[in-house]
Structures are given as C-alpha cells and as structure tokens.
C-alpha cells in the first residue's frame, strides 16, 4: 500500500492500473470535461472575437478578409452612431439597475412581515422571474399598443394622456425600462427578502429598545447587515442589463431610429444584419471594457462604504 496522502485511499493500492489512475486524479477527471466545454464555447470564441476586431471580416465576403490594424476602432471614434449607442447603454444599465434595486428593497421590506397569505404572495412574485423574457416582451408590446393596448385604454378612460408609446423616440427607452421592471423588481425583492430574513432579530430589537425609530433601525442595523447581498444583487442586475436582448428587440426593435439601441443590440445588428463581423467585434471589445470599468467602479464604491 502506498503512503496515504489525501488523494489516495486504501482501495487505490500502488500500481498504475486504470482504477488507481482514476483514484489519483479524481478531481481532475471530474472537472476537466467542464474545462473542455468552456474552452470550446467561451475561451476560444473570446480569443477569436479579439482577433476579429482587427480585421475587416465580412459575412458575405468571408474569403477576402485581412488584418486592418486599428481601422475598426478609428471608425468607432468617428461613427455618428457611437455616442448615441453609448448613451443608450448607460441610460439602460443605470435605470434597470437602480429602479429595480430600490423598489425591490421596498417590496422586500413589505414582504418581510409574516401574516396569513404571505407565502402565496411571495410565490406569485416569483412567477414573472420564471417567465420567458420573449413572452414578457411580446405581451407588453401588445399592452403598449397605442389603439388596442390595455395601457392606453385604461389611461384614456381615467383621463390620462395616451401617448404613442412605441413610436416616440423619447418614450421607447422608458417602455423598455418599465417592462424590465415588471420582472426585475420581483427578482431583486425575492433575493433581498432572503437577506432581510437573515438579519438577527435580537439586533433589531436591541436597537429598538435603545430608542431607535424604525427608519433608523433599518438604516443603521438592517442595511449594513444586508450590504454584501445588496452588492451581489446590484452586480447581477448590472450584468443582466448589459445582456438584455429580446426584451428590446421584440419590444421596440431598438427604435424608433436608434433611440432604444444599447451596445448589445448594436453588436448584433452590425455583425449579423449588416454582416460587418470585424467591426462588430471591435464594438464587442468596447462592451467588455465598459463592463470591466463599471464593475470596477461598483467594487470601489462598495469598498469605500464598508
């Protein structure tokens, strides 16, 4: 029998039989299929995206591509669409992070109390989270319809204005954000509710005994306690906002014009609608940079607050 290190068991014995090898390298064998798949579906594609950004690769003329250096990035700087798309991206990402997180926290506080029927209420708030985003987008598109939609129907019957939601460049992004809020407020609140329920009761009671009002207890006891979770749900929302696709494509189509086109949709249409894969890849690199910078900023803010 070999020396009993952690990787070996009495059953493994000494020799180099297949069984012994499996025993010795069990953790590697267990994890390498995942490594292999990730290599094929994300690592290699990512490397190729970087390489493509320096080419003029075009889907319809795919055999005549060549390296063009920084041409794509130069074009990015002069493209009239660039500032619009970047502003849209920031607008979308900030609004779909801040609004759902603040409203979700409020909703979570309301759901924290236990009373009859609270279980059903919590479950019902789960359902939008689980509904396919494309169904959500199409349903809201129907409801935002300016003549036959329910929203203008209700607004009109109580005397509110009935705008052309999907045809107004100023309203397209708010429509996307409202629709997003329908799933993301419940999402944030369900996650934050779990955190709120984990705050030790004694802590809050002790503060209340010391004479702190409810808002003060929330601000000085509850909020610091749930801050790590708050940080994570903000980051999760953030990443979801960047990858939002059908929630825009099937709702406003990114329009009218470019008014609701964030970077994600721009990459798609540049690469696959207009076949300019090389240029799309350079947009992709800008997107990676945007995500990295903003995650870095969130991290720094979170560190400062601690």
């Amino acid at each position, binding site marked *: 029998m070999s020396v009993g290190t952690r990787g070996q*068991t009495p059953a493994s014995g000494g020799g180099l039989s297949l069984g012994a090898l499996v025993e010795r390298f*069990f*953790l590697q064998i267990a994890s390498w299929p995942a490594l292999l798949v990730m290599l094929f*579906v994300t690592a290699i594609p990512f490397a190729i995206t970087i390489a493509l950004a320096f080419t003029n690769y075009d889907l319809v003329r795919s055999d005549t591509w060549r390296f063009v250096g920084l041409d794509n990035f130069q074009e990015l700087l002069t493209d009239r669409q660039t500032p619009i798309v970047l502003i849209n991206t920031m607008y979308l990402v900030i609004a779909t992070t801040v609004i759902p997180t603040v409203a979700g926290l409020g909703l979570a506080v309301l759901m924290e109390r236990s009373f009859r029927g609270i279980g059903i209420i919590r479950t019902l708030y789960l359902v939008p989270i689980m509904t396919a985003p494309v*169904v959500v987008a199409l349903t809201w598109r129907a409801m935002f319809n300016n003549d036959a939609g329910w929203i203008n129907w209700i607004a009109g019957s109580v005397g509110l204005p009935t705008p052309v939601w999907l045809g107004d460049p100023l309203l397209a992004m708010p429509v996307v954000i409202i629709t997003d809020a329908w799933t993301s407020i419940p999402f944030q609140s369900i996650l934050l509710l779990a955190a709120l329920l984990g705050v030790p009761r004694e802590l809050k009671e002790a503060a209340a005994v010391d004479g702190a009002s409810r808002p003060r207890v929330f601000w000085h006891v509850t909020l610091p306690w749930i801050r790590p979770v708050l940080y994570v749900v903000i980051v999760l929302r953030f990443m979801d906002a*960047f990858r939002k696709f059908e929630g825009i494509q099937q709702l406003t189509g990114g329009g009218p014009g470019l008014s609701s086109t964030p970077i994600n949709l721009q990459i798609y249409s540049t690469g696959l609608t207009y076949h300019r894969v090389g240029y799309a890849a350079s947009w992709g690199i800008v997107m990676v940079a945007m995500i990295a910078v903003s995650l870095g900023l969130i991290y720094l803010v979170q560190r400062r607050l601690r």
Partner: protein
Amino acid sequence: MNRHGRRLAVISTVILVAGLIIVIVPYLWILLTAFKRQVDATAVPPVLFSPISFKSWERLLDGPFPGSLVSSVIITVGTTVATLVIGVPAGYAFARGRFLGRRFLGGWLLFSRMMPPVIFIIPLFLFFHQLRLTNSYLGLVLAYMSGLLPFTVWMCASYFEDIPIEIEEAARVDGASRGRAFLTVVLPLAMPGVLTVGVLIAIAAWSEYFIPFLLGGFDTTPATVGLVNYVGAAVIDWGAMAAASLTLVIPVLVLTLIAQRGLLRGLSAGAVKG
C-alpha cells in the same frame, strides 16, 4: 403605537396587492387573448371578454409551432442532463480541493458568467457553420452551456461545501473508491440542491431566446423563437401569439409552484454565495 402599527400594516398590504395586480395583468391578457375571436383580439377599444373561441389554437396547431415545442423539449432535456452531468462533478471538484487548472477554471467561469453571450456568439456562429453544427441540437446544447455551466458549477460547489468531508472519508476508509464515495454518499446528500439547480437550468433553457435565434437551424428552432413569427413583419396574429405564449408559460408555472421552496432557496443562495 398599536393603531399606528395597524395602519402601516394596511398600507403595506395595499401596496403588495397592487403590485400583485400589476404582476397578474399581463398573464390575464395572454389568457383572455388566447381564447378570443380574432376580431376581438385587435379591437379598438379593447374587448375584454369575447365569446370563447379556439380558432387561435387551430391556427397554432396547423403551423410549425407544435414542431418548435418539440424542439424546445429536446433542447431543454438535453441541456439540463448534459449540464448536470458535466457541471455537478466539476462543482464537487471545486468544493473538495486543489487540482491542476482549478484557478484558471474558477477565474474563467466567473469571466464567462460576467460577459454577455454576444461576445461569444459571433465566433460560435462562424464555428458552427464550419463544423456543420448549425442545424443540430448538439450545437445548441453546447452553446447554452456557455452561460449555464458556470452557474451550475458555482451553485453545486456551494452545496458540496456544506457536506462535511468526514462523511466521505468514512466511506473511503471502509474501502469505497473516490468515485464510489462521490456517487453513493456525497451525491445523495447534495441531491436536493442538485435538483434545484436542475430546475433552474431547465427553466433557463426553456426560456432562452438569443442563442437559438442566432444558432438555431430550420429543424431545431425552439418555441421561444417560433413564437415571434406570429407577430413578425409578415403577419400579426396576437391570438396565436397569446396561445403560443400560454404553452410556454404553463409548464414553467407548474414547475415553479412545485419547486417554489427550493427555487427561493436556490436563487438566494446564488446571490448570497455567488
């Protein structure tokens, strides 16, 4: 104080119920529209109740939609099984120690989780044309794993970490191999967590749109992408779209109600530990 407290309770209940109404209204729209006569589905002003009609369902069943539902089932089952088979052991390896490639895999999984799929999809699109994977379920399942595998490994690692290592060491002292100890001792203990992850993978795969929209072939188009054709450039048929949406919503609704406790815990574990 007491009266104040009661008033607060009333206000918060009112807000919760108002929120629930907003949550329910879109489902109500789907349900009502799916069983309307076609003229009522687009009436101005909207007609809330119309004589029950199954015409939308007939149009749906006559078209390619039933086929795309079958594709959805195949993709969902395939993705769930493949992701669990590959992801669960990897999660175990992560929870249990050092091995060559651990740091790299961990960092890469996190990176893949952060990056939006559009970064990977264009090269995959080019690959799949080269490898003739465009019209195959295998290609789709692989592409789905780009986002779901990191999630699975992560979640499973956190479940395995909660299982004391002494339990499997005891099994190994009794002569079980590592593989055997994993399959017969550790895995059964982690099963509730693994099942929750499985349900979350299945719901995510069932709802996925972006990947099959770009990589799905004529025969492999799932229902999420097929659905869109009913309100595309050529036809606008809200009745059929609503009926199709119902077929997408109901399985998830049932699964959510059955697995709600696990899902609540699974989602929040992802946030607390992720």
